[in-house]
């Protein structure tokens, strides 16, 4: 069967160049980078080379990069570490209603430990307003954490403006750039953020590895793992060397190819969005029409439910998702869509198509061929479809 992968926001295939480098590594260079001997030094060299690549990719210096086990750990580490070191200074944290669970659940947990939390609303496009951020700031605010691009609806947030606002008030700013990194160009300088999260497996790199950028001078402390002195005391535990090497390589390639990939992806995405919204009735694009990730198309289909669409697509070999991969095991409709004001019953009919570097116009054609009959079939079964 033809297999089409349209779920690149959930995870991406490892690029062949990255996989090759990691495999060579797995087989040959196995030292513990903490060890003083030859094997340790060989591993250390590669870890530091990867750190330089990741730093270069976001315009940071290598010392500002800490390797972690993924985006979730980076988000937790960023938020918890800023909260813990500043708790005598203030206890107010600002975030948005459409963050990934790794951010929103971490902030909510702090809310139970004496922190005050403001969860900003978003507009119908899933966008946070800079004015809302400004209005929420108090003299107790110690952290603003707002994602760079949303995973479910692809909306790109005004982080540059929020970053300079935070800076002007002396408030630490974190952004989760897991979805934007490698897809839209940015540097930490340009965004004006103090901490920034990335994850390997969203940029054609390995799973189980990520990084946290911590700007030099940022008030932050290690507060998640206790243990060895790795990562200059910022992250305990033997480094995932092959994973780190893979992340470095993937970051380097992502930035090298960013421009050409983005054009390719936009062409596919725009055709997909245009055709789906004109050829199928009762369909709406979710997220911002223009301020969105180049590879991201997400919709709601009225009268039918997301999972049954996914299963039908899967039977035809197409892999897509409904809401974020992390929540698709649950019965709740996506918190992102609800925050955007989409009614429950419509939010249940959401679907997300996220494109990647190997997708072709033929993949889009195939989708456009199989999707209308699926929608018709499910709508015919639905007690909601009134026609």
């Amino acid at each position, binding site marked *: 069967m033809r297999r089409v992968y349209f779920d690149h926001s959930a995870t991406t295939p490892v690029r062949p160049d990255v996989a090759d480098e990691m495999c060579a590594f797995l087989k040959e260079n196995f030292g513990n980078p903490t060890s003083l001997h030859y094997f340790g030094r060989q591993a250390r060299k590669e870890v530091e080379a990867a750190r330089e690549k990741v730093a270069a990719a976001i315009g940071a210096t290598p010392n500002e990069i800490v390797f972690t086990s993924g985006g979730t750990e980076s988000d937790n580490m960023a938020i918890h570490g800023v909260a813990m070191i500043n708790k005598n200074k203030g206890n107010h944290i600002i975030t948005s209603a459409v963050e990934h669970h790794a951010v929103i659940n971490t902030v909510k947990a702090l809310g139970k430990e004496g922190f005050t939390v403001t969860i900003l609303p978003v507009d119908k496009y899933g966008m946070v307003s800079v004015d809302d951020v400004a209005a929420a700031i108090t003299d107790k605010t110690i952290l603003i954490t707002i994602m760079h691009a949303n995973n479910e609806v692809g909306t790109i947030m005004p982080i540059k403006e929020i970053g300079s606002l935070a800076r002007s008030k002396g408030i630490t700013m974190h952004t989760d750039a897991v979805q934007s990194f490698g897809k839209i160009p940015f540097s930490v300088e340009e965004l004006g953020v103090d901490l920034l999260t990335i994850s390997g497996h969203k940029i054609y790199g390995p799973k189980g590895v990520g990084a946290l950028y911590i700007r030099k001078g940022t008030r932050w402390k290690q507060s998640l793992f206790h243990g060895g002195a790795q990562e200059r005391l910022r992250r305990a535990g033997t480094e995932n060397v092959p994973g780190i090497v893979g992340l470095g390589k993937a970051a380097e390639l992502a930035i090298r190819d960013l421009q050409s990939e983005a054009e390719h992806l936009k062409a596919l995405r725009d055709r997909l969005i245009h055709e789906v919204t004109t050829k199928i009735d009762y369909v709406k694009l979710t997220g911002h029409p223009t301020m969105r990730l180049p590879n991201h198309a997400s919709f709601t289909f009225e*009268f*039918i*439910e*997301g*999972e*049954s669409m996914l*299963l039908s697509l899967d*039977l035809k070999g197409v892999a897509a998702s409904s809401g974020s991969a992390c929540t698709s*095991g*649950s*019965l709740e*409709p996506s918190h992102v869509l609800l925050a955007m004001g989409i009614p*429950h*019953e419509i939010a*249940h009919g959401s679907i997300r198509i996220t494109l990647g570097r190997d997708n072709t116009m033929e993949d889009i054609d195939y989708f456009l061929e199989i999707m209308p009959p699926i929608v018709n079939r499910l709508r*015919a*079964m*639905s*007690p*909601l479809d009134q026609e």
Partner: protein
Amino acid sequence: MYTEKVMDHFENPRNVGEIENPDGVGQVGNPTCGDIMKIYLKVKDNVIEDVKFKTFGCGAAIATSSMVTEMVKGKSLDEALKISNKMVAEALGGLPPKKMHCSNLAADALQAAIQDYMDKQEKK
């Protein structure tokens, strides 16, 4: 995640649609929860002669609706009333734990339809 039987009923649902002038109709769930099931019955001599369903819901919801209609077709009302959500799930070779509530819906919709039929009979 789903058994072959579930996928078969999802892909080729039995008895989809509506019955004109049904003898009983049951609807459970609501769109806010993401599930609605509607079951139509045609009853003759206390036997379910025909049954159809319409469902808004996930794969398990569609499969359990289809399964329950297949299970009751030709059965007496007494037999049909005995069908529980567990029986529906078992007939499908099992459901993931998170999806057990979908089979509840199917059994509930059936019971509601039978109840509706009986209520109408009483009024006659």
